[in-house]
């Protein structure tokens, strides 16, 4: 009897303790602290061909950091499909990493949550100052007029990757510089039994990156100057329709690509089934799929006419990864040191070479490795003809709503249904109505 009672008391106590600890989690709404100065947790985005590749690239650098500072960095590489959800969960619970990678287009959305440490002048001074970074990269770190929510880490730009052999076989000497040329070349390529251009029709983010550039080339924006969605502007409708028409009307994108969302178009290109690919910093990915660097050429993404540049000659989004510090960190000084380490000239060179990206740090860009013909195209695009995606709080909702609308339009095109100005406008109107009222 006594032992049963003891057991019962024990169980009750245990469950009470469990209840208390489970409820005791949650947000400590204050800023960061320096409670645990010897460790850091770092969430890296998946930049390499696989998570294992990322671990191989990053671990030696983290060991180097530990040697210099005595701070041990616990690395977790988070796949892209999970990253935003993980960050949202961390934001809600207040339990997250100390330092993390974010897609640079999320900067303004995440900035609005207040979960990330703002990079004011004082914080920037700790990592060597704001002017170490390229302007275009800084343009995608948060809403205008606010302290950046993150600092640039890797920069990328879209380029046209083309298969040299298929081009030669089809008698094409130069990669296309305008969309009309691209369509004409595409016909020649298709006549020889290859597919012309790849797309990831079911991937909302990819769709957004392209229709954004198409809109820029028509002098249009998805948001008004004061940050309100304006998806049904006739020029925006024209931009979206023109992109989908590459499949629906011009037929240079195969209908099968409408359901691609797992980078199948990159594989098609690597296998030599498809002649052209519009992609950001694809070299490392193509290499891992066994395509040799001599087999393909890199050219700027086409424009409507003329050559790439600012304004309506924009031919890429400012793509890239930013590094952010979680405001609830328990090692604020260590986190800042880590950001300084990762954006130092030496690390910038090592990491950007490994990922075939461009360093957003000016002094690191000078390294000859970033002046190969391929990297020169990407570097020039990034610095002269790339525009940042809208830096508004509802950016991530925009990606989902409009990206899904384009996905549905591709599905229509694939099923042989007509894609008209009216159907495009209706799809965009619906997307706009799903946006938050703010």
């Amino acid at each position, binding site marked *: 009897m006594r032992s049963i009672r003891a057991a*019962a008391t024990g169980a009750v106590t*245990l469950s009470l303790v*469990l209840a208390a600890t489970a409820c005791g989690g949650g*947000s400590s709404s204050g800023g960061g602290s320096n409670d645990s100065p010897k460790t850091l947790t770092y969430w890296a985005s998946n930049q390499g061909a696989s998570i294992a590749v990322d671990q191989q690239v990053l671990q030696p650098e983290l060991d180097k950091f530990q040697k210099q500072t005595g701070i041990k960095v616990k690395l977790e590489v988070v796949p892209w499909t999970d990253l935003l959800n993980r960050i949202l969960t961390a934001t809600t619970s207040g339990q997250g990493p100390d330092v993390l990678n974010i897609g640079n287009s999320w900067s303004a959305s995440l900035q609005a949550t*207040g979960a990330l440490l703002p990079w004011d002048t004082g914080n920037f001074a700790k990592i060597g100052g704001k002017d170490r970074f390229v302007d275009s990269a800084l343009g995608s770190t948060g809403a205008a007029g606010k302290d950046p929510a993150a600092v640039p880490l890797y920069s990328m730009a879209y380029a046209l990757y083309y298969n040299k052999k298929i081009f030669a076989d089809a008698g094409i000497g130069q990669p296309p510089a305008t969309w009309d040329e691209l369509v004409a070349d595409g016909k020649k390529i298709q006549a020889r039994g290859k597919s012309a251009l790849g797309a990831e029709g079911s991937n909302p983010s990819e769709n957004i990156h392209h229709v954004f550039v198409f809109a820029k080339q028509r002098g249009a924006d998805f948001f008004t100057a004061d940050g309100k969605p304006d998806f049904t502007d006739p020029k925006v409708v024209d931009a979206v329709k023109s992109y989908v028409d590459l499949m629906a009307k011009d037929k240079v994108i195969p209908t099968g690509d409408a359901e691609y969302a797992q980078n199948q178009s990159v594989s098609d290109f690597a296998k030599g089934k498809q002649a052209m690919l519009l992609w950001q910093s694809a070299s490392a990915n193509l290499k891992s799929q066994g395509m040799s660097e001599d087999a393909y050429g890199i050219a700027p993404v086409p424009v409507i006419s003329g050559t790439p540049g600012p304004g309506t000659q924009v031919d890429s989004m400012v793509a890239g990864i930013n590094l952010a510090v979680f405001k609830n960190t328990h090692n604020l000084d260590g986190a800042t040191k880590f950001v300084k380490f990762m954006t130092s000239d030496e690390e910038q060179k090592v990491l950007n070479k490994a990922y075939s990206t461009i360093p957003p740090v000016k002094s690191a860009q000078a390294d000859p490795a970033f002046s190969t013909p391929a990297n020169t195209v990407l570097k020039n695009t990034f610095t002269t003809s790339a525009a940042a995606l809208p830096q508004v*709080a509802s950016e*991530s*909702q925009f990606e989902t709503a409009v990206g899904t609308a384009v*996905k549905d339009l591709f599905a229509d095109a694939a099923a042989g249904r007509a894609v008209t100005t009216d159907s495009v406008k209706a799809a965009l109107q619906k997307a706009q109505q*799903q946006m938050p009222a703010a």
Partner: protein
Amino acid sequence: MTTTTAFKEPVRHTTPGAAAREPRRRTGRLRRVSLPYLLLLPALLLELLVHLVPMVIGIVMSFKELTQFYIRDWSTAPWSGLGNYKVSVDFDAPVGQALLHSFYVTVGFTLLSVGLCWLIGTAAAVFMQDTFRGRGLLRALFLVPYALPVYAAVITWVFMFQHDNGLVNHVLHDQLHLTGKPSFWLIGDNSFYALLTVSVWKGWPFAFLIVMAGLQNIPRELYEAAALDGAGMWQQIRRITLPSLRPVNQVLVLVLFLWTFNDFNTPYVLFGRSAPEAADLISVHIYQASFVTWNFGTGSAMSVLLLLFLLVVTGVYLLFTSRGRRASADV
């Protein structure tokens, strides 16, 4: 076993010590009465913690304007009263319309899926009732879809449904020439049938298993007697098998309904985070309304509405079926 002997103790005493013993006995009885509850307490607390607390938090959230600006410290989110509910059920506005559309799709999908699962499961169980060579093997084979991990099974279907290299198009188009050109299964209108196929494939073995267990309880004599009276196979099924399975079916259909209606894994793995309109099931729709658009208040309101709907359906269903059963028991 001190407890039993304590009861047999003679109670009435008039000795001087009796008054002193009385309170002690009362605490003893209190202890006896309260011990079971004390033992239940941990389970009760954990039940509260695991089930009720999150549910209550969800309901509270549905009354808040919980957007990206407040998720960091959601106690600061402003109360929105019935605002989130109004948005969800305003069927003239896009959010309400989309929810209603998703609801219709889900109802249609659930009815078809549950119906087919039950039909195939019951038919297979009836056919497997008689012993024959290889019955055990077939039974085991039938249960495979149910035993496979959902993700692995559904991702295999994704490969099979692919437009360019998928097995389904290879068979339907390349070999049987049933379609003029390869069809899309994962986007557009066909996605509904793709989803239904996977759902039935995954769900019918459960129906098969339950009905098979139910069939074991039907006495063989009934069939023998019926056969002597000249009843054919079809009549035996209609007059003996189905009525005997009634209580089993009552639970089976309810469970299948709830599982299918709430199924999240199948559509999510099949279509990713933005499902095609034709296969926009309500669970994924709510997920999208909250996680993808970062509006957790509206998402919670939709979840509460879904909960209420399922409660009503379950209540009405149980009321009707058990009344029917009681009526047939009276006869």
